[in-house]
């Protein structure tokens, strides 16, 4: 019944880790094969790369297995791994017009140059639970080759360029300054567009979707923009060669890109310039269409500003990172008895003072 001093913290941790390891290995005593996870749970792996801020499908797949499928935890493991990697070079900006396209749609036009390329999507599939997946050998007859890129990249005119040609969308700002990097200098407010886009690109998918959704339901400046174009594909990744100084392609990354047209509600009645659309931009690692679209929406919401939550850059950008949000929320599991003792003393002191004054008051009434 006596008081037991806190001891054995390390053995407690190790026992907890052992239990987790048993769950990861399961009854069959082996972990899932990460290469199979990378191939068949690629959308989960893509989320981990995007929120973890590291393009490394192999590492993301290992993290997903290690985290027992917890996407937040897997992204966190990848972020921590990222901290150990020295930054040895900066890539050269890529024109996403070079994308080897796997999927490209434009909701803005029924038909546009290049057409609609659905690619691999569940958008028009009935979401019926497919029990055949649980039956061994169900798909043994299926000899289809896995999804492959076209050898020749299809040429797609940018939908945005169609409107630029008509003078309805401003030309892209060619004189863009050196971008901020929020992983090296914390974001400051008002935030530059590059800091805003980088923060949104690493955002937690659920959070960014909720903020975007709120802006569509009246808590935003634009009720409903128009998605100009959504693309999924592979873009080249180049650095400058350290000796020759020439650009060299060192690989490809898969990305999802979304562009959204919006009209500002704040146009001045006496404005003399021609009214134009503005373009919201979203670009995320892997295939993650809801995140790219929500990013494009919030890009514009935050540029326009306003009173709604989704338009306030500090509110959105400071709370949208999954690693930071889950970490701080879950830190409430840590012991807080030092603080609670201090709080408890205050409550007891005020209780005793209240009792004393009540007694005095009652005594005075008698």
């Amino acid at each position, binding site marked *: 019944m006596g008081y037991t001093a806190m001891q054995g913290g390390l053995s407690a941790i190790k026992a907890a880790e052992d239990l987790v390891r048993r769950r990861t290995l399961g009854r069959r005593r082996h972990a899932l094969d990460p290469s199979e996870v990378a191939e068949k749970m690629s959308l989960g792996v893509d989320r981990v790369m995007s929120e973890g801020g590291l393009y490394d499908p192999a590492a993301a797949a290992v993290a997903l297995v290690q985290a027992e499928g917890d996407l937040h935890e897997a992204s966190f493991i990848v972020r921590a791994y990222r901290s150990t990697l020295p930054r040895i070079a900066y890539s050269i900006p890529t024109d996403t017009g070079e994308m080897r396209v796997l999927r490209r749609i434009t909701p803005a036009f029924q038909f546009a140059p290049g057409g609609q390329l659905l690619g691999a999507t569940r958008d028009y599939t009935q979401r019926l639970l497919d029990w055949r997946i649980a039956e061994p050998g169900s798909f043994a007859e299926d000899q289809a080759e896995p999804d492959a890129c076209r050898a020749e990249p299809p040429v797609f005119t940018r939908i945005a360029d169609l409107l630029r040609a008509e003078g309805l969308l401003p030309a892209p700002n060619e004189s863009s300054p050196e971008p901020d990097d929020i992983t090296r200098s914390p974001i400051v407010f008002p935030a530059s567009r590059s800091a805003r886009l980088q923060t949104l690109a690493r955002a937690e998918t659920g959070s960014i979707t909720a903020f975007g959704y709120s802006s569509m339901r009246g808590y935003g400046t634009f009720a409903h923009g128009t998605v100009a174009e959504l693309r999924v594909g592979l873009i080249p990744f180049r650095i400058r060669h350290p000796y020759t100084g020439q650009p060299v392609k060192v690989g490809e990354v898969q990305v999802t890109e979304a562009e959204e047209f919006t009209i500002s509600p704040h146009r001045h009645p006496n404005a003399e310039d021609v009214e134009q659309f503005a373009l919201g931009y979203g670009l995320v690692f892997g295939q993650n269409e809801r995140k790219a679209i929500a990013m494009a929406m919030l890009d514009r919401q935050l540029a326009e500003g306003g009173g709604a939550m989704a338009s306030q850059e500090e509110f959105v950008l400071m709370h949208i990172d999954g690693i930071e949000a889950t970490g701080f929320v879950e830190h409430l599991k840590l*012991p807080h*008895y030092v603080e609670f003792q201090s709080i408890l003393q205050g409550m007891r002191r005020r209780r005793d003072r209240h009792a004393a004054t009540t007694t005095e008051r009652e005594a005075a009434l008698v």
Partner: protein
Amino acid sequence: MSSVATLVAQNVTPGRGAYNFGFLDETTKREVRRALLKAVALPGHQIPFGSREMPVARGWGTGGIQVTLSILGPDDTVKVIDQGADEGVNAWNIRRLVTDTSGVPTTTDSREATIIQTRHRIPETPLRDGQVLVFQVPMPEPLRMVEPSERKTRAMHAQADYSRAWVYLYEDVVRRGEISHATGYPVMVAGRYLLSPSPIPRWDVPKLNMADGLYLFGAGREKRVYAIPPHTEVVPIDFEDYPFYVESFPDRKCQKCGAEAVYMNEVVLDDGRHAFTCSDSGYCDSRLTGGVE
């Protein structure tokens, strides 16, 4: 400017699974140290830094860990405490991160440590010259209680405009008859910056004033470091008629070592009785093994 080849030669770790001394790469550690130098030069001023994600979750001490790992050398001896205790699971987890990636020795005796990383306590034995206490800071901004916007609080610090913090204390007195702010009590540093000392109890606040050791504060999620250099004046803000006071444990003695006049943990026993022990476990152990009065 460094060429890619030089950086590769300096920094690339040998394959996956190998980690640099102190986990972080050398460029990152240098970056954190530069921020810390600036923090020491401007006592109490919050310095932004490129806070990295650590293998410990945000909000679980990543700021303190980055500070500790960035100043750590092979000759250091490290002590890690959580809520005053060396044995806490989070203290253990941070300690083994430090030792696994650096191999430096650790201690539970605060007198033997060159670097002490702490969550929400200052050891009972005063720091001596040359010792560094690294605080884990959840919310570095002392004005956050009155102003949620970082843009605005930065302006308030720049103008030394702390009027709303005083109004906050005044309203507390009106509502509760006292300044109830329990832990993380706001202090003025060197007469210039208002600072949050992290959620240490009031008990520890006086130890910040004119100390012999160096106090470094790291807030990982909020990406700020700040410092109280040795021999710096640190004053809790209060009113003449409502002066600052600390927690008290009248007639309480540590159940284990018999210490009085220390910050205590209150524990509820299985039979419902309340017992008290030293919050500073290293201090308690030193008293039991002799060596500390």
